[in-house]
């Protein structure tokens, strides 16, 4: 694997826009190569048997293809994978490495021709709607949409440690994953939230040298500029070359480029109310310190320990929500 990694690091960096160190970081911490038996059992238990599974990947983070194929294999022996046009390489590498003759990689797939089995589709809402409109009646669509993660720092959490853990989750994939935290709630008052913001800013400074941010397109940079300037009008902003931390008492979804929006919260039970209409788009809640006690916060989403939000166990889809995300259970 390390030979493959050395061979393909730059190419993966080019197609994923992550820095080479970012590619390594993702491979080290977000590729589930060593699942436990219990996790695999859960993965298989959650799958329904199908005659075959067609997997259509689009805008996922690159390592997510492993879980996508594992989920498909849990449902059917025969799996056909159409990788993302932008990033077809990692799936091909996985297939080569696994050398499973029943996993077929195809360049194109006609959704209308899938007359039986399951279709596992990944992508944006628009992509999934297009696919959903084409799936024949005989096939079952399992759609996995986009989303974002939130962090919740409870009232007793040590701020520096929580900030370091949150930053790790932010740095993985440069926030481009559907589990990536973009909003962090800090239980306490504005001063505590600001102190946490400073800690996150410092922690991200440290990460910037260890795992530099990858290439960010101009439109996203413009969004970051607009977000930071808007936040300056209302809250506190800490801005470095490659990351921004803003603290405000209301929720705002920041652009995904190592930009963290921090909100003080009177109590964790108010998290969903604070999220308002953004709540259905939350895939996971990462909590610091007391994940079991705060598990109920997830309300149908994945609950995670802060610092491990991007490394969920291989026990099923990363995103347990039902697509389309219209309601929170």
């Amino acid at each position, binding site marked *: 694997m390390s030979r493959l990694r050395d061979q393909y690091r730059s190419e993966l960096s080019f197609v994923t826009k992550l820095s080479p160190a970012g590619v390594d970081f993702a491979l080290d911490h977000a590729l589930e190569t060593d699942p436990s038996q219990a996790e695999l059992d859960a993965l298989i238990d959650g799958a329904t048997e199908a005659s075959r599974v067609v997997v259509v990947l689009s805008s996922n983070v690159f390592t997510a293809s492993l879980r996508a194929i594992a989920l498909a294999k849990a449902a059917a022996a025969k799996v056909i994978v159409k990788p993302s046009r932008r990033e077809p390489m990692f799936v091909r590498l996985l297939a080569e490495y696994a050398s499973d003759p029943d996993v077929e990689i195809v360049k194109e797939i006609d959704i209308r021709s899938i007359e039986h089995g399951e279709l596992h589709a990944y992508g944006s809402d628009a992509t999934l709607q297009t696919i959903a409109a084409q799936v024949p009646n005989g096939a079952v669509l399992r759609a996995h949409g*986009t989303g974002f993660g939130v962090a919740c720092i409870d009232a007793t959490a040590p701020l520096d440690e929580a900030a370091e853990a949150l930053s790790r989750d932010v740095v993985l994939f440069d926030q*481009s994953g559907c589990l990536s935290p973009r909003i962090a709630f800090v239980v306490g008052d504005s001063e505590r939230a600001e102190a946490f913001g400073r800690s996150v800013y410092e922690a991200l400074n440290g990460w910037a040298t260890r795992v530099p941010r990858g290439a960010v397109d101009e439109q996203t940079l*413009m969004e970051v500029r607009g977000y930071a300037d808007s936040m300056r009008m209302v809250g506190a902003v800490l801005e470095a070359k490659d990351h921004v931390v803003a603290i405000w008492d209301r929720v705002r979804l920041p652009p995904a480029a190592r930009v963290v929006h921090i909100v003080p919260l009177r109590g964790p039970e108010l998290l969903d109310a604070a999220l308002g*209409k953004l709540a259905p788009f939350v895939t996971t809640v990462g909590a610091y310190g007391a994940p079991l006690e705060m598990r109920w916060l997830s309300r149908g989403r994945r609950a995670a320990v802060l610092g491990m939000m991007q490394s969920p166990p291989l026990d099923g889809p990363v995103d347990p929500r039902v697509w389309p995300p219209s309601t929170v259970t």
Partner: protein
Amino acid sequence: MNGQESDALHARVQAFIRTPETSLSDSYESIALAIARFQFSHVHGYERLCRARGIDVAASTAHSVFPAVPTDAFKLARVSAFAPHDTPVAFRTSGTTLGDRGTHWFRHTNSYDMGALAFGAEHLRLASTRRFPVLVVGPPPSELGDSSLTHMLSLFVREWGTLPGETAFFLRGEKLDVERLAEVVKHIDQQALVCGTSFAFVHLLDELESQQIVLPKGSRVMQTGGFKGRSRSVDAGELKRRLAQAFALDVASVTSEYGMTELSTQFYEVGTSVRGFPVYAEPPWARVIPVDGVTLEPVAAGKEGIARIEDLANVDSAWAVIVGDRVRRVDGGFELLGRAHDATPRGCSIAIDEILGAAR
């Protein structure tokens, strides 16, 4: 105290609107600098934005160093030099179903009205008569009183029009009254001005199918607004052609207006560039400057950038705003190139636009 300062600035702006070419004693630059300093002192968020940019307000002698406020800030903050009880007029953006509607607060609309009428007259007013029929394919103020567009159109109806009050408006309870519009037009014997949003016009065209509402020769049609958040959109050129056909006019009689809630000034289409984009003119009291979307510095001449719009009539809110539209300076005005490109998706993290789309 800031009321007096504001009044004095409004007076300077209104004098400039009245006679910009002969205002030798006052210039765009000096008024802009004075307004920027006023807003630094009285618009709380703007002070923070200036400080973050390291602006030395006392030492700055150029208005252009002062930052522009992102239009998004109107959704988040009260971008106003005055307290709520001093700003009785509020125009709100159409907003999104996520609930963010921007609000532009006004103490009064004197400068807004003066500018809208002056520049509107230059581009829309029909020279043949003092008053002429102004017909609005849109809702009346009683139904949409917090819309800056409705305010402007009702101003045109009141100051230029011949139809009394809300009878000039042909969209009520979200229902387009095509029959009444056709009936009113049938009895018009002079040049008329028909104004409406692109979206309302599309519905009018749908209802008319191939029928025409024949306007007297020399009449004008003004369309404004895009299709943001709407389920249907029609190419701007095609819409113009179809409107011209529906009202029995030539295409040149259909003009477009470009404006937004966060501004007090509007821009009018004056032609098409060699590249095929609409070219808009700005009045002397407003400037549209293409800037780099990241550094916010003006781009080189002839290059495209996002629009930094300076509007002296925005005395009490934000004299300069950054909007998401791409523009390029050309002879006679600026090309409007459309919204900035979408970011390239890099993963499964949801984009803000996607949430807005899903929530519609």
